[in-house]
């Protein structure tokens, strides 16, 4: 097994209450240990205030841990160099309103040491990748929420990072945009990029994540491969096409004869997102 993309060991973060009179400690993250393997899509889930964002910020070196350590591809995440391999999209990002989409990517590219023709080409490719070619010369101040999210994703990818950290990547994005982002994450995964994401859209997490971790009150309460966590071990789903009523009755009888219990039989349904995209003609 190679070096994990993210390695978190015994991480604790305490914040001091801002009140002058009661300097209580608030534990945002409590002795968290987890590892994200390179090339995986990892979903960090949990209710609001569960410590997900704090964990992400510590991984990115934006917040200093009280104790424990975090590493990105084996480098301590407090080292600035570790962020060469990371792209980050915060929740509800805003960018400099006076810059155009293309200038925004130039700015972030220059921060990563890119320049000249290489940066111009990269900006063009990324604008095409996130579907913002037509809006490349428009000021970011006039972008919709979905467009901001997409330019945010493009800036996160500007230096071709090996790890992408996404905080609510589809928040406020319409179903078509959300579907695009999901497909983009899957394409990035195919290219070997590790993705760590926080999202409240559990159906989407279920579709794209290999592993998940569930946090509550700063503690990691469940962690593992998605299939292992959510599959029901003693049940089996059978989907049959063009089955006659007689065949179904026969199957039910055979199952009961063998000591199994048929819990239900129903027509499978496509999910609402797919139906919406088909109806609106935005599915690609």
């Amino acid at each position, binding site marked *: 097994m190679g070096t994990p993309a993210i390695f978190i060991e015994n991480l604790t973060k305490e*914040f001091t209450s801002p009140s002058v009179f009661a300097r209580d400690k608030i534990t945002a993250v409590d002795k968290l240990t987890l590892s994200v393997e390179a090339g995986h899509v990892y979903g960090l889930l949990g209710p609001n205030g569960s410590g997900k964002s704090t964990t992400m*910020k510590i991984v*990115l*070196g*934006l*917040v*200093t841990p009280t104790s424990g350590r975090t590493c990105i591809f084996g480098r301590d995440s407090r080292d*600035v*160099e570790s*962020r*060469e391999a*990371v*792209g*980050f*999209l*915060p*929740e*509800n*990002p*805003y*960018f*400099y309103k*006076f*810059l155009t989409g293309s200038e925004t990517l130039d*700015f*972030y590219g*220059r*921060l*990563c*040491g*890119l*320049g000249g023709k*290489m940066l111009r*080409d*990269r900006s063009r*490719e*990324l604008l095409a*990748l996130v579907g913002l070619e037509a809006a490349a010369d428009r000021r970011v101040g006039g972008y919709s929420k979905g467009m901001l999210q997409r330019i*945010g994703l493009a*800036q*996160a990818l500007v*230096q*071709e990072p090996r790890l992408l*950290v996404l905080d609510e990547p589809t928040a406020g994005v319409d179903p078509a945009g959300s579907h695009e982002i999901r497909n983009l994450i899957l394409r990035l995964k195919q*290219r070997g990029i590790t993705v760590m994401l926080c999202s409240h859209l559990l159906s989407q997490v279920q579709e794209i994540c290999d592993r998940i971790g569930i946090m509550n009150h700063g503690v990691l309460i469940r962690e593992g491969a998605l299939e292992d966590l959510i599959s029901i071990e003693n049940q089996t789903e059978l989907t049959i096409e063009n089955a006659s009523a007689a065949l179904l009755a026969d199957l039910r009888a055979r199952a009961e004869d063998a000591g199994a219990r048929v819990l239900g039989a129903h027509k499978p349904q496509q999910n609402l997102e797919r139906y919406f995209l088909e109806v609106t003609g935005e599915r690609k």
Partner: protein
Amino acid sequence: MTAENSSTAATVHASAHKLFSIWRTWAIATNTFRDLVRQKVFYFMLVFALILIGTSLAMASLSFQGQLQTVMDVCLGAMSVFTMLLAVLSTAMLLPKDMEDRTLYTILAKPVARFEYLTGKLVGVTMILLVATLLMTAAFCVVLHYWQGREIENLQLTETAERAAAAIAKLKVGTFTSTLFGGIGIIFLRAIVCATLTLMLSCFATSWLFTVIVALMMILAGHLVPIARSVWQGPVGGAMDVPFHLAILVRLITVFVPDMQLFNVVDDIAVGASVSADVFLRVAGLGAGYVAIYLLVGYLFFAWREL
């Protein structure tokens, strides 16, 4: 896919990480400059200063002082006040705005050190202060040139040719002097010191209004530093009897507040006094020292700040 082709090159380019990169700092500086150029406060203050400089001749005609002295007084005074205000107001907003819009997260999540970010912001503010100072200097030169032309015409009409020639030669030598431009340099340096002080305060302040108020108070208190220092050190030959709380206040002012009296050499220039190169060098050195110290202290606060 072309994105993939460029990926190797991009990664190779980015992997040569330096602790301090002028390239990254310059990217932040130019972006800050572009941001500030679009702020209405910049144009508002610049226009107000230019109007004041432009009307200094009219003020001079109402004054009992010598006309050149009044023009210098008004113009250098306007430049001093507006560059200082511009420095404080434009710097105070930089960090809180980036934090509020979360652009700070996206910047610091890139391989950008916090010191590079702060330095870039300061360089950006310095660039806007330079532009403002140059524009005000240009307006000042136009006013001086116009005044000089008018004076020459007067001399040619009222004096004999020989006396007029001598007076004109003296006038030409005494108007656009190196001391005058050195004084403008000191005004620029003072504005940078004010900007760095404001940047340092915004590194731990939670609101930009607090930063502006405290920065302006510190700048005002800075004019009292020599008095505070004399109280602290006591008069020659005996210690001063100072109450304890006042002694603490005096020490705090002396240690943390910039000595703004240093820069008052501009007032001497405005009244036509000649200032030696040594004085300019001393002021420049101390000004640079303040900038370095405030930037370092600001960085220490910013490095420990939870974002």
